[in-house]
């Protein structure tokens, strides 16, 4: 058996992330919308093995937090350790949306709370929100970016391949799309929609809006690649053998542009995840209390959070490995599909 390749690892990680999204209810220790108002801005839990009296525990434990009145500072109540348990009972959820369960992967006994990466301004568990948010943001980001790149690939390919009037019309449209003040358009879109959107509708809307707005840039890049590809010798050869436009485009020209398209995809996914924040501003995003990475990051963009609660940034850090994985996957796809390297 051969060693796993870089692409294989990245692919597995990516699959893992999407799988964990499906299992979010089980993996997350708490209900992501449950507010613990006495524990707002609680710092990440300190896992311990040695208790206050110096005794060593085999199982990691935490102490319950006691708020200092009038502040968001906390003291640990060292009178009782709360060991971390596997499969404790907690909030009801459905595994993969199907199997009802109220067991979670890990947790601690009440009344203590296990906030592994801290809590937010309402005392909601950030880790649970992060895990549940993975059901929305990476998926929406991927779909929206794919939509934008697909449209860009088709329109850019057609424009570059046929040239002339087609090219002129499509590229002027692309410029128009880039020049339109989208913010005002979003306002108009929002006004035309019902007052409150179901989360599922909001999710699809986010994908549609970001995809529609984002196609112009990839289209222009694809067009430039196609423009040079269509004059290559092998394209001329294919034509001289009587290949149809569609075949030439599909077999010989567009594959040239795939590299560009994939790079664009990898670049667009993070942008799309962040675009969700903007959409939320116009009431188009997935709203509170449902967690999405976009609205979690929106909460960080305030000075007092920056100055006081560093753990609120952890959701942002979670994006870093995700983006790296995306880059790795695109890289592999690029090499396989475009360069046809093993």
């Amino acid at each position, binding site marked *: 058996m051969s060693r796993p390749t870089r692409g294989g690892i990245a692919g597995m990680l990516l699959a893992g992330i999407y799988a964990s999204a499906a299992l979010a209810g089980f993996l997350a220790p708490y209900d992501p919308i449950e507010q613990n*108002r006495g524990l707002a801005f609680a710092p990440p839990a300190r896992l311990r093995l040695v208790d206050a009296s110096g005794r060593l525990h085999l199982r990691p434990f935490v102490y319950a937090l006691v708020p200092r009145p009038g502040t968001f500072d906390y003291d640990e109540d060292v009178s009782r350790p709360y060991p971390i348990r596997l499969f404790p009972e907690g909030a009801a959820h459905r595994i993969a949306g199907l199997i009802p369960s109220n067991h979670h992967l890990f947790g601690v006994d009440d009344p203590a709370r296990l906030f592994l990466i801290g809590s937010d301004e309402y005392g909601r568990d950030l880790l649970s929100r992060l895990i549940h948010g993975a059901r929305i943001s990476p998926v929406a980001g991927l779909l929206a970016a794919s939509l934008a790149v697909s449209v860009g690939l088709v329109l850019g390919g057609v424009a570059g391949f046929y040239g002339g009037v087609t090219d002129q019309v499509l590229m002027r449209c692309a410029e128009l799309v880039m020049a339109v003040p989208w913010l005002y358009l979003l306002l108009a879109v929002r006004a035309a929609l019902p007052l409150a959107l179901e989360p599922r509708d909001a999710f699809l809307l986010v994908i549609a809006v970001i995809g529609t707005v984002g196609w112009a840039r990839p289209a222009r890049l694809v067009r430039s690649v196609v423009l040079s590809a269509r004059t290559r010798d092998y394209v001329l050869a294919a034509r001289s053998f009587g290949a149809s436009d569609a075949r030439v485009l599909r077999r010989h020209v567009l594959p040239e542009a795939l590299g560009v398209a994939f790079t664009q995809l990898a670049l667009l996914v993070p942008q799309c995840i962040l675009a969700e924040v903007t959409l939320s*501003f116009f*009431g188009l995003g997935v709203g*509170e209390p449902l967690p999405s990475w976009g609205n979690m990051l929106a909460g960080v963009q*305030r*000075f007092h959070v920056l100055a006081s609660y560093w753990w609120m940034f952890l959701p942002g850090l979670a994006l870093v490995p995700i983006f790296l994985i995306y880059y790795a996957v695109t890289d592999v796809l690029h090499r396989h599909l475009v360069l046809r390297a093993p």
Partner: protein
Amino acid sequence: MTARGLPLLVAVALLAGTLAPVRYAAPSENFVPVAGPHNGPGARSAPGRYWANQPRALPGRGPQRAFLARWGGRYQGQSPWLVWAADSGGPAAQAEEFLIAAHEVGRHGGRLVVTQRAEPRTLNPVTVADAPSRDVIRPTTADLVHINRETQLTEPALARSWTVSPDGRRMTLQLRRGIRFSDGHPFDADDVVFSFEVYQDPKIDSPQRELLGVAGRPMAVKKVDRYTVQFDLAEPRAVGERLFDTVAMLPKHRLEQVYREGRLPEAWRLGTAPSDMAGLGPFRFQQHLPGQRVALERNPYYWKVDRAGGRLPYLDGVTFVTVTNEDAQVLRFQAGEADVLARIGAENFAVLEREQTSRGYVLKDLGPGLEYSMLFFNLNALPGTQGAIAAKQNWFRVTAFRQAVSAAIDRDSIVRLVYRGRATPLAGHVTPGNRLWTNPQLRPPARSTARASELLRQAGFRMSDARRVVDAQGQPVEFSILVSASNPVLNQVATIIQSDLGQVGMRVRIVPFEFRAMLDRIFKTYEYEAALLPLGGGDGDPNSEMNVWLSSGPQHLWHLGQQQPATPWEAEIDRVMRAQVSMLDASARKRAYDRVQQIVAENLPFIFLVSPNVLVGARRDLGNFRPAVLEPQVLWNVDELFWRRPSSGPSP
């Protein structure tokens, strides 16, 4: 609109500087539209009240405050004496009747740097409608009678004294003699008569106009002699002299011609030369750098002196710098690049507090202000096209339903989580910050889900098997709350309410909306179910609240455009509010207004949440810094502010 007092909606657009779009839209966004029902963005709103997306913008008549103003510069470089001689034929003219201020005697020199959320749009005190403009204009203008922001009572300003006839309809004001506009031209009764002609002119449509008209009819203003002016009101008005607060006296010699030519609304723009303007405030306009700052300089003719006989103001000038979001304002203040900071959010206050001593500034928590936040339901008469909302109005119109919502809300958590303890839970619309008028009998409801459920049950709602509240037809109770997307504080409040109401079985969706789009829905299209807004400002007097509580009022937010009061309790409020206007007995007025507060608290057209504390800060060596809860909180006594150390304070 600077209505003295009219409460204003403040939308605290903290916006955190975060979202790209927001930043984009910042200038127009932050300053609100003052959009009344019929005005577009940026237009003035319904009389009396400003919608401000940002806190410091709250106006009210408070803001357009009674300073004097004057821009000018024609005589710059000449001594006052020369000017005097030039204008009025020499010292034979009247000696100046100064107002002697009682504050700590300071020292002259230095400038004050103030940050603003957006650039001012105009320097015209007649047409000003946006908060940043008002902030800049206020120190350059003066009113006849002024409401002291500290005591909340009236005191003499340009009028050294006044008398009110026994029937409360005629006021006679004695003007201060010998005082001058900032260009050196003398001020007298002709300027006063001219000013009121302008403010009451329907063609000019000044925001002040409606406020000045008692019962919709303008006052008759008559010059008795050079220093006496007589005002006749159409109907008796309690504390009628409060009308004069913030009504800036205009220089007839500068504005009469443009007024007669019908060009007054366009006069005194940002680009106007300082030498073409004049006012009676402690400062006068000096310079405007577009996109950066507006500078005011000391008015050498100002009519106040300190106890030692030194002419005010102490400062050489005030510079207003545009900084478009609260976080950036806080950082500038922390870095020493701004000298005062008003309307700080509680979270930023907590951050600033930590470095208070090391950075050389002082912070003050003035306790509850006049502003409050409230949730209200759409009780408007809807056009037939909005069947879905109309169906839900069957719930919203039930008083017990509103009471149940109120009982389910955990105000203490809002205070603690959102305001860091720096806010007060509210029972009614008059906050504890309004010392003269608050009704102490009203206690904020303690949270009780049991009471909420009981109220719902009595009103015919029941709990379904899925632990959801359903109405008599079995329809589950769910509604949406509209909230300004650029206001993170209110979004937090909404999230807490959502969770609270979820616990009694109501499903609530939060719908964040761009602020102006939101106002459009509330004022024009009525396409909303419930909304969360801050309301506030004003001078605290009930008269400044008429446009909210009268059923025909332009800010009667929950049900606009009523021909007849829609409910018996609204009819009663109408009656009591109209009656109190002409009650000359202060205690009878207080009883009447207490009654209004009680009716409102029982029927809950607004579900009152909390009143945030007024949080301000200033450099430690700024003398006479005595912030007040009324607008303008930190600059109301800008003529008395001084630097304890020479040359302290950054100069731009």
